[in-house]
């Protein structure tokens, strides 16, 4: 069903309503949106959206959603970002320690940056996630020490 009259805004609203609203937390939404982007071409693809809208419109709607979520997270305070990363880690199936360790070592969140994003904003996001991970790791170590002490 390729309706040529639909706009990027229509596709975006549809995507937000049907897909993004079902994902809890902006960080998980960001990672999900980045995963819809092809590593080689930088083009976005989502089967559900592509079935309803023209390919380029669906691609632009996903790119728009990616940018919006990214800017929303990048503008958060460090305290809010720590809470956001915690929500993401708690929702993942892997153990908390494992996710924290892998995220600190591999920094997979760097792949979540939209293309041509402002360099200072991108650096602020990367730095803040790095700090959020260090803070969560510290809290985890403190909790472990308290358990051992009691």
């Amino acid at each position, binding site marked *: 069903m390729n309706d040529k009259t639909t706009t990027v805004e229509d596709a975006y609203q549809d995507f937000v309503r049907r897909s993004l609203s079902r994902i809890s937390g902006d960080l998980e939404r960001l990672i999900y949106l980045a995963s819809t982007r092809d590593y080689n071409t930088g083009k976005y693809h989502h089967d559900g959206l592509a079935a309803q809208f023209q390919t380029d419109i669906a691609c632009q709607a996903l790119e728009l959603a990616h940018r919006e979520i990214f800017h929303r997270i990048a*503008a958060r305070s460090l305290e809010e970002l720590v809470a956001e990363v915690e929500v993401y880690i708690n929702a993942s199936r892997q153990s908390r320690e494992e996710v924290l360790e892998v995220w600190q070592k591999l920094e997979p969140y760097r792949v979540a940056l939209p293309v041509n994003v*402002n360099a200072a904003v991108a*650096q*602020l996001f990367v730095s803040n996630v790095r700090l959020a991970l260090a803070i969560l790791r510290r809290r985890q170590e403190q909790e472990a020490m308290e358990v051992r002490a009691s």
Partner: protein
Amino acid sequence: MIEFLSLIAGAALVLLLMVVATRGWRASRDLDELPLARGDEEIAEPCPEEFVRRIFSRADWDFVRGVRCAGIERLYERERRRVALVWVRQISAITRRVMRGHAEAARQSKNLEVSMEISILTQYLGLMAVCAILSIAIQVVGPLRLGGLAHFAQGLSQRVAKLQESLQADALAKAAGSRAA
């Protein structure tokens, strides 16, 4: 006695310069390792105001201090310094690009206004000086105490960009007028 004091002052100055140079070298080494900091000459838009406020805000620092961990405090200082330097580098890159564009247009213009050109040049030199001071100050004291200067630089860069835009619009209007005549 005066000679001895001069010697002490000279040694202190050399020490201070060495500290600044070392910090600058370390900061520039950090920046060179960053793929994000490269290619900023291509950035079309300056960093939005809300992000500049966040880079230089105290709120995140207060939160980090609440964690009570010296390692995380050091990490915060290093990271925020790095972000602030990327921003300064971006502001000066955008300003240089605007000035290159203006110089190009001025070379082809037949009716230059000297007072306007002096005003643009003064603003450009002022902004570049503020960027240089900010770069050094960020490396020496960190971005936390420099919010006012950063806000000033952001405002000045926006003024230079707007001035350039209005001059370009004027030039285009004049060119269109002369073609029509």
